[in-house]
């Protein structure tokens, strides 16, 4: 059983989901960890051309990609080129002989499904679906990071992108004004999300302070991104991101079904809302009925105290 894990790099090193894939590939069989090189910006055609040529020659049984913006795009087109089965955003998978079984959500998170396909297959895997073996977790920022990175990186085979296959031209990158250099929403272990109850974009300073203390990514309800208070990419829910962090903190979010679909698979959910009838409390492990503007600064202070004490 030959398994490929396609990894991705961010500014600070291999992405966590890539390490998760590499570890899983090793458990499943004869693993190779591949990285597309030579592209300043990921683009589907040169990446797919290079991988498809290699797959034709080496015949892996399973190709794993992260369910990241790049992985979902690459996985779909690669599967179409190879005419292999494709499952996106798997939250678990197993192999029995030549049959792949995967768990994934459908209907925008409202249904959990078990799906089956014949190998060979391409699967995109949700960040956090597989736990990292001990010692493989990305190092925290700070001294000695380079050494630790060396230690935790699996052996990577470079696959040069096929530049001759490109049909598009990259013009420029336009950063979002509010972009903060935070951890991507889909991969964060802690997410702090704000809703209409935050009353206005100027109040996000309070959310950012809490997120800073927690090392969290920022999320938002659709009402908030539609109103232009926060960038679209922070939207959690049906037409935004689906997240399943260890801790999801919903601040002033009422809990429309489309929002709930995007976050109910979080391990622990905290909701703060002044409306005791808000639907968000139906999925919360811990609910606080409170005026956000009183509660939030106090909560941030308490978290900071606790973090400093530990």
């Amino acid at each position, binding site marked *: 059983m030959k398994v490929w894990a396609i990894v991705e790099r961010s500014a600070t090193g291999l992405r966590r989901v890539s390490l998760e894939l590499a570890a899983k590939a090793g458990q499943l069989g004869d693993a190779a960890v591949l990285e597309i090189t030579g592209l300043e910006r990921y*683009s*589907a*055609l040169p990446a797919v051309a290079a991988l498809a040529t290699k797959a034709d020659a080496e015949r892996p049984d399973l190709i794993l990609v992260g369910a990241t*913006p790049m992985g*979902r795009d690459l996985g*779909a*087109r690669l*599967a*179409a080129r190879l*005419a292999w089965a*494709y*499952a*996106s955003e798997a939250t678990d998978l197993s192999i029995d002989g030549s049959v792949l*079984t995967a768990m*994934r*959500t*459908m*209907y*925008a998170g*409202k*249904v*959990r499904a*078990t*799906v*089956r396909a*014949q190998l060979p297959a391409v699967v995109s895997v949700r960040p956090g679906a597989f736990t990292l073996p001990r010692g493989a977790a990305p190092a925290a920022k700070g001294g000695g990071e380079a050494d630790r990175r060396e230690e935790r990186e699996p052996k990577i085979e470079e696959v040069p992108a096929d530049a001759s296959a490109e*049909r*598009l031209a*990259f013009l*420029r*990158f*336009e*950063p979002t004004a509010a*972009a903060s250099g935070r951890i991507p929403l889909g991969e964060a272990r*802690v997410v702090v999300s704000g809703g209409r109850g935050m009353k206005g974009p100027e109040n996000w300073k309070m959310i950012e302070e809490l997120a800073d203390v927690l090392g969290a990514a920022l999320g938002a309800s659709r009402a908030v991104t539609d109103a232009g208070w926060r960038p*679209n*990419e922070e939207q959690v829910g*049906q*037409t935004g991101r689906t997240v399943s962090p260890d*801790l999801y903190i919903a601040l002033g979010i009422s809990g429309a*079904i489309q929002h709930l679909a995007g976050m109910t698979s979080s391990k*622990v*959910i*905290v909701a703060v809302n002044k409306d*005791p009838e808000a639907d968000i409390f*139906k*999925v*919360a492990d*811990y*609910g606080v*009925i*409170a*005026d956000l503007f*009183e*509660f939030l600064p*106090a*909560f941030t202070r*308490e*978290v900071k105290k*606790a973090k400093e004490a530990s």
Partner: protein
Amino acid sequence: MKVLVCAKQTPDSTVRVKVASDGRSIDAGQVTWAISPYDEYAVELALERKDADPQTIVAVVTVGPARARDALRQALAMGCDEAILVTGQGAEALEGLAVARAFAKVVEEAKPDLVLCGRQASDDDQGFVGPALAEVLGWPHVATVTKFSPAELPHETSGPAGTPGTGGVDVWDVWKEVEGGHEVWRASGPAVLTVQKSEKEPRYPSLPGIMKAKKKGIPERDVASLGIDASAPKLEVVKMEPPPARGGGKILRDGGASAAAELVRLLREEAKVL
């Protein structure tokens, strides 16, 4: 220019879906149907181009059962010019790659300059058909698009898209949403764009729009007559279940500073996530 939108009819996103008694599909009797949300954004984005350039023709196509005609009617009422329904026996059960081949047949006949799809349909959530359609056509694709416009080319070498000076080739600038912002990509010639969001909220059908849509014919194509290769890798659903039930959580009613301290204690000692 002509834009073709590939859309799918899926359960209305504002309603709950229930797993059927067979444990591997949803209870269709309980469902109201609508255009899949991302496909609705794709329709809106195409209509925004038509607002900017009224010469633009926006066509919409779906592959599915007979009821999918309602989704097309909805798109026409929003302002699309034409609609095509690919249906017939087996249309609903086609696997992703075969659906892409069916769309590709329609694209080859309709000859649009650009094809728009939602980034994923809100039933299978796969996000496969858009990139697969580009693959079948041999076109490039750009994913998670939020905007496109005719390229701003230096004046002496070109005019607006499609005019002499670009060699008869339409050149498009396409905004792709990525982490931290947007990448702007240029496509020279036809491309498939999978849409993340439109610039504005999808428009509601106007009353005249609804009246006009009622009068428009929606030609039907039998999927069997397209002559596509229907063999495709299968992704079989063997089980469906509702997400694990949640709730029964602890509620702190006194929202003051003591609640803040209590919540931190619970998150550390009980939930062990701090």
